């Protein structure tokens, strides 16, 4: 009887942990072939997990594999070893379409190079994830978000008509459109000057606090990393320690 009770408690705890774990990686590795035919390990034996509402920074120098790790955790690329779980689903069991469906409306992204679509206006770029998620009132919500990031007057501007800082603010608005459960940010200040970068970080954390998204942020900037709840250090494709 006691055993059964213990078993039930363990199951409940495991389930509760699964429910609270938004991202996890087990023995994750990525190996690629170099132009001269050799095999190169970009990532190896990564074990980590990020819980709901947590803000985690992955800190490391250039070429340490941190962006590759973000791509794998978000299901934008596939590992050569190990498993990734995102929002309670094992990505290895999902095909490309199912991974996309999992992201739709629940996962937001901010990239170092903004990745706005050049043919679309600021408003269209922000409305895009809402339209993909088939949510109603996409344009109205997008407009609100753009106002929130201070671009209410630039709705119809195309990316090439905006400065780098402004483009990243559009990207932030797009990332938070639809109130995502998880937000992946890849060096969001990497292409910006110190002032613009600072403003983006303030906006990013401000929006995250309002929406309550889990945040996984990749950076080489210790100051930015310090704003997160937890910092994972990565070097030469391996996680060093946690703080």
């Amino acid at each position: 009887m006691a055993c059964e009770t213990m078993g039930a408690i363990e199951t409940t705890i495991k389930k509760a942990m699964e429910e609270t774990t938004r991202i996890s990686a087990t023995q994750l590795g990525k190996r690629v072939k170099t132009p001269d035919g050799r095999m190169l390990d970009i990532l190896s034996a990564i074990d980590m997990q990020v819980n709901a509402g947590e803000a985690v920074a992955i800190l490391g120098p250039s070429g340490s594999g941190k962006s590759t790790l973000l791509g794998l955790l978000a299901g934008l690329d596939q590992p050569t070893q190990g498993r990734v779980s995102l929002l309670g689903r094992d990505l290895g069991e999902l095909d490309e379409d199912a991974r996309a469906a999992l992201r739709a409306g629940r996962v937001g992204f901010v990239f170092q190079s903004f990745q706005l679509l050049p043919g679309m206006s600021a408003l269209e770029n922000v409305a895009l994830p809402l339209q993909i998620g088939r949510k109603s009132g996409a344009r109205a919500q997008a407009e609100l978000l753009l106002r929130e990031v201070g671009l209410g007057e630039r709705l119809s501007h195309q990316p090439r008509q905006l400065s780098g800082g402004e483009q990243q603010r559009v990207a932030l608005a797009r990332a938070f459109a639809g109130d995502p459960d998880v937000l992946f940010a890849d060096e969001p200040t990497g292409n910006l000057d110190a002032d613009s970068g600072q403003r983006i970080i303030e906006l990013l954390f401000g929006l995250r606090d309002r929406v309550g998204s889990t945040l996984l942020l990749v950076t080489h900037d210790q100051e930015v990393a310090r704003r997160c709840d937890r910092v994972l250090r990565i070097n030469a494709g391996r996680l060093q320690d946690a703080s």
Partner: protein
Amino acid sequence: MNEGWLSMAHWRSALRDPGLRLLLASVLVAVAALTSVAFFADRVERALLLQGAALMAADLVVEQGEVIPQAWLDKADSLGLRSARSISFPSVIVAGERPLLVQVKAVESPYPLRGRLRIDTPDGEVGQAPAPGEAWLEGRLRNRLDVDIGTSEIQLGETRLRAAGILRDEPDRGGNLFQLAPRLMISYRDALQSGLLGPASRVKYRFLMAGDAGQIASMRTWLASRLKPGSGLADLENARPELRTALERARRFLSLAALCASLLAGVAILLATRRYVDRALDSAAVLRTLGMTGAAVLRWHLGQLLAVVLVASLAGSLIGLAGQQVLVLVLGDWFGEALPVPGPRPVLVGLLFGLSMALGFALPTLLKVGRVPPLRVLRRELDAPGLAGWLVWLLAAAVFVGLMYWQVQDQRLAGGMALALMVTLIVLMLAGRLLLAALAPLRRAGGTAAMGLAALARYPQLTLLQLAGFGLGITLLLLLAVVRVDIVDTWQGSLPKDAPNHFLINVQADEREALMALLAERRVPNSGLHATTRGRLTAIGERIVRPEAYTEMRARRLAAREYSLGFSAEMQADNRVQAGRWWNAEEAGQPAFSVEEGVARSLGIRLGDILTFDVAGQIISAPVTSLRSVAWDSFNVNFFVVGTPALARELPVAYLSSLFLDRDSESMTLELAERFPAVSVLDVRPILSQVREIMERGALAVEMVFLFTLIAAALVTFAAAQVSRDERAREVAVMRTLGASRGRLIGAVLTEFGLLGFIGGLLAAVLASVSGYLIAVELFDLPGRFSPSIWWFGIGVGTPVVALVGWLATRRLLAVPPMQVLNSG
């Protein structure tokens, strides 16, 4: 930088650029298609000319009233030409007790130089000139004379000849449709010994020559200054109107098909360059930042482009050579052993064409590379100032029209194509603008279809470029796929199965009724009787007609010859009035002439000129009230000059008719000969079948050439889809990152390309219908018609094919992990 050009490493790296690869493929296919067509068309055309030559039994013929000088034979010999002489004259032969008027033709070996002579002898079929002492008789001559082949003897002047065979086929028999008397063929030597070639006899001496085009041209030049007034020089270009028309049409079909293929390939080059330049701008900006001048950057890319074009042109020429050989193998039976070896010219043409196409279609776009601002290194969105889109197309079109003219040497065809091309581009661009305006509101919507349609509105320049590419591709394909069939059908239909295959000549006024009654009784389809007489043109207005006053050989010949003048109140159905007006019932009572436009052009006859003819000593004059074109290959009764019935009243006219006789023609011919001894029956079936053969082979050749157009069209479609590949790759990656499903993206792409295909196909159907109609009427002198199937093909095939191409272009992008694309910049 230049020293690295020759290294393999440089090219390995350069050819990783998809734009350059596409450019290489476009030039390769353009040149391969063009040279295949050029090689093949060159050989087919030469074979067709040879076939035409077969109907003259030679490539070049001189005809005159005097003996052919020995010096001419020596000259022909020294030029390496094969030559033979022939003599023809009317005479009376006697076999048994029966005298009969015949047209004697004396030939020497190796007659015929082209074509085939076919004689039935008791020992079997033979094909060369008769031996001395032997004579060959036309079938109807044997019927009339009642001779036994192999044994009976015939008296011709002072010689006695043995009737040795029946003349079945004589290649140059059709030369004069109005030859009255039956043919007797003898050896050249017997004619000289017959004692019939006195100064008063109506003897025509002919000198036949055959060889390659260069030899013939040299001989023609040499002969030109030595021909006396009244001598005629005939080659395929100025002889045999019915054949010339057929050949000219066949040549135009081939040229048109070749032009369509090369134009499509040109558009592919233009699209490929655009992609190459888009990618080159980034590296150009970096090079400029490092201190390279704009001109040096441009030189570097230009050099790279030219090297690629050179290699692709040479490789394309070789593929073209192989391609046409495959065609020859597939179609070998067509021409038997007659297809000439390909000449080296198409390789040169391919090289020049490749280089000119690259310059015309690629250079205007490439110029941007030299003007890229170095600041692009910091702000990638900064574009280089380039020529306006319309100017790029205009320059390309101008170069193409120049090349086209050079290739076909046909002002009308080149001009027509140029105009059609301009209109097509303008229509496509306007339609594109309208489409963009119509799609703008869709950018607000969020559905799958709206996503695809909004994509069109997002990249207006790309959309216009793609629409122009797809639209032009489908238009040219439709033109060749549907309109070609229509034109070929109409062409072949102009010579129906029951086209007249016999002519009745020299019907007298008092025989008309009985003859028509006999034809009606035997149910022989016929053209009715046409009044005709022979006359010589003596004056045009105040100007006396003298052959030596003309420089052009055809004009000299026309000025010297006697015409068969026709007289009719109605115009023949296959004639078309090109200037002036055909006479009405009232005007038919007044004297007037209508002249065939080619003759009018050669002799300088204009509307309103008073023509004077000498008809057996009687002088008649009348004004020219219309100029006509004549479909000589219809085999209807046609005349260069037709007069009103009023003119014929006082003249000695005979009548002629054309008939269609089927397999019983032998017995019908015999019956006609018995009942109407003065009437001659002329069998034109050999020429008719020759013209039919040219039509069939011409049509088949065009089908083969069409294959290359298909390949070029596929390339254009691919290139048009590839133009937006970079933008599309990024868009797909971002959309997938944001959670768009594969099905949704494919749906959007199918909608986007499907709409482009639908509009391209719809416009193409309109454009191809109109240009097809104009091509038939203006270029081929055939009745124009609109084909309903063009709409089904245009829209029904255009939409799914372009959608499929879009899907194929995107499918591979979907397989790439989004991270890979996003990391690339």
